[in-house]
């Protein structure tokens, strides 16, 4: 089944021509890089996917309930399941969102959940991305190109068609739309994911806009049109982060935000996807509590496992972390993109001792995890087959129902033995094939 489709070089050339790039900031300057595509797909069996799907739906539903709770009554804190310290001082917690219920009570409409498969076949959740997870367009466009170069592979009826992402996304926007058009708000072409913004706009029929195309009046968000008129906006799939969203509520120096958009949102006149304030739930510290959330809100056992995680904040955990540092992964709670992820086994004696001091002094800032020895996938490198670590970002869309997109972004490391697969760290990607039941 995992026969490569046509040759990767042809596809990579096509990707380059289509402008499938991502941008990164390195040493203060902006560079666009290609995100190298590997033609050997990751294949997930129908059975495996069915389990994963149940687990992901359960997890995202619980996370949405957590967000609704935290921004209203905070029952989970009152009931002592999550300490207050992990919530209200989190950078992702936004007091200006307190008491605001988003349309239909949905906070995380598009969730990107990162998983790895251990060598025994078990899937582990590494991280929930509930703010603006990117990457869905890469497998989409890669599949589109593969379909052109090797149509017969996809005509067999064995592989789930992933072209429904656009319609899933569209119905997710329509579900919460408060009357008016759907727009995708991009910070502009210098953003790392600009390609994706324009691609998704085209595929969903939403209008791609920048902040200067929008304005608010009487707590209603409008798009300016060519003739000096205005069109009401009912849903904004925004691809700018919370702190830049509204210069009159958050960072005043934001040049990419829309003044008063928070007023329109609080008044219930526009849906913002994903809702502002979600950062409090995908904080690496809160990750530890997600299995507890599932039990608390759904009264169910978690179907998918977390990587075994320790919070140095708790004395018992701190002791374990300090004693076992050399075999653990340490993560800075407030970082992303693979920055701030360090492995104890790569540290010198001196570094280990520095880290012990840091963890003791700033116990809330870090989490530690057991290293999961996750599987390598076959990757073609200069015409040779090599084995490289790979993870999977699954996309879960919460519309009327919560659904998992039968595909996903498989990212792999291009460095032998490296566990860090992030694109910003030079990784590549594969298409993810979900097989249909026989």
């Amino acid at each position, binding site marked *: 089944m995992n026969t490569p489709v046509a040759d990767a070089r042809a596809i990579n050339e096509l990707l380059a021509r289509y402008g499938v790039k991502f941008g990164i900031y390195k040493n203060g300057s902006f560079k666009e890089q290609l995100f190298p595509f590997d033609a050997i797909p990751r294949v997930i069996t129908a059975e495996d996917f069915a389990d994963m799907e149940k687990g992901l739906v359960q997890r995202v539903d619980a996370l949405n309930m957590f967000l609704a709770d935290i921004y209203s009554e*905070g029952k989970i804190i009152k009931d002592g399941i999550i300490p207050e310290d992990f919530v209200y001082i989190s950078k992702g917690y936004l*007091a200006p969102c307190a008491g*605001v219920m988003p349309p239909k009570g949905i906070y995380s409409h598009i969730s990107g959940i990162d998983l790895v498969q251990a060598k025994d076949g078990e899937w582990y959740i590494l991280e929930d991305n509930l703010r603006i997870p990117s990457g869905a367009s890469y497998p989409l466009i890669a599949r589109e190109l593969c379909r052109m170069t090797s149509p017969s592979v996809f005509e067999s009826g064995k592989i789930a068609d992933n072209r429904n992402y656009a319609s899933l996304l569209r119905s997710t926007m329509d579900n919460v739309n408060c009357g008016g058009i759907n727009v995708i708000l991009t910070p502009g072409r210098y953003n790392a994911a600009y390609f994706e913004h324009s691609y998704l706009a085209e595929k969903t029929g939403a209008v791609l806009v920048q902040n200067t195309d929008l304005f608010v009046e009487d707590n209603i968000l409008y798009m300016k049109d060519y003739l000096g008129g205005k069109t009401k906006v009912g849903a904004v799939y925004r691809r700018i982060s919370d702190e830049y969203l509204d210069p009159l*509520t958050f960072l*005043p120096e934001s040049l990419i935000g829309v003044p008063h958009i928070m007023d329109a949102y609080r008044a219930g006149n526009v849906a913002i996807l994903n809702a502002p304030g979600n950062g409090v739930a995908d904080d690496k510290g809160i990750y530890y509590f997600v299995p507890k959330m599932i039990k608390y809100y759904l009264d169910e056992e978690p179907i998918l496992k977390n990587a075994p995680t320790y919070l140095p904040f708790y004395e018992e955990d701190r002791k374990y972390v300090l004693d076992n540092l050399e075999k653990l992964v340490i993560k800075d709670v407030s970082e992303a993109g693979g920055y701030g992820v360090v492995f104890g086994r790569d540290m010198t004696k001196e570094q280990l001792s520095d880290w012990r001091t840091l963890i003791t002094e700033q116990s809330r800032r870090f989490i530690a995890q057991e290293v999961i020895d996750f599987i390598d996938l076959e990757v073609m490198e200069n015409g040779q087959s090599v084995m490289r670590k790979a993870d999977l970002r699954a996309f879960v869309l919460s519309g009327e129902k919560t659904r998992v997109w039968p595909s996903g972004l498989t990212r792999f490391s291009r460095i032998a033995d490296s566990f860090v697969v992030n694109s910003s760290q030079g990784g590549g990607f594969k298409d993810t094939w979900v097989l249909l039941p026989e």
Partner: protein
Amino acid sequence: MKRLQFEFQTNLDFSCGMSEHCFTLRCIPVSDGRQTIAEPKCVILPHSGKVWRSRDSFGNTLICGRMNEEHSGFLFKVSGEASIENSCEAPGIAQPFYRAYTELTAAGEKLLAFYEENRPAAADVRLRAEQLCEAVYNAMVYQRGETGVKTTAEEAFSVGKGVCQDYAHIFLSLLRTDGIPCRYASGLAFECGETHAWVEINDGTRWIGIDPTHNRYIGGGYIKLCHGRDYSDCPIERGIYRGNGDSVQTVSSKVTEV
């Protein structure tokens, strides 16, 4: 009870024309059980553009607006009558975020040490707050020009000098270290020709206003305009505009007894 007539005006003078001006004003006092406000009037100049009302999650009334056309000055003026109970208390409960540090009120090394030196012995929330208030009052010297709107509690405390905003932030920081829910209050005070800032603590059922700049409970001479976790949650005026010039702000207020 006191009956007060108040008038509050802010002028922004731009050195050159500004356009696409969007603003949010927190200048409308609300009735809260301690202060009762009768029909506050708000005038905004120039008249061009759109003005509407909104509300933030802290419970403040907002005046929002958008002026596209070029203008070289901007002013807003609020006036009205307030009846104020001769008390520092208003009923209300605190949301849990009022217990958490913010960027401006997080205690660093110096404030944590200062808290330890002044850790109140009393059990009662009010008495604990009184002791912390007195400690702030004694440790600080009131002086303008030493701090700015972005100065944190820790920074202002390290300098040892500041204005009412700094006193309030330092007091909030100590209260939060002590676990007492509290918020920043901004408004007008009887003897002062500008705006003033103080603190409200919550004892479970009531907000209690305490003014660390004067080391006293607030009384009938204080009219509150807005509140938040710290200054940055509730500036009285916040705006953005297009243009290269500078702006000069002048604030004046008049509170008289009727």
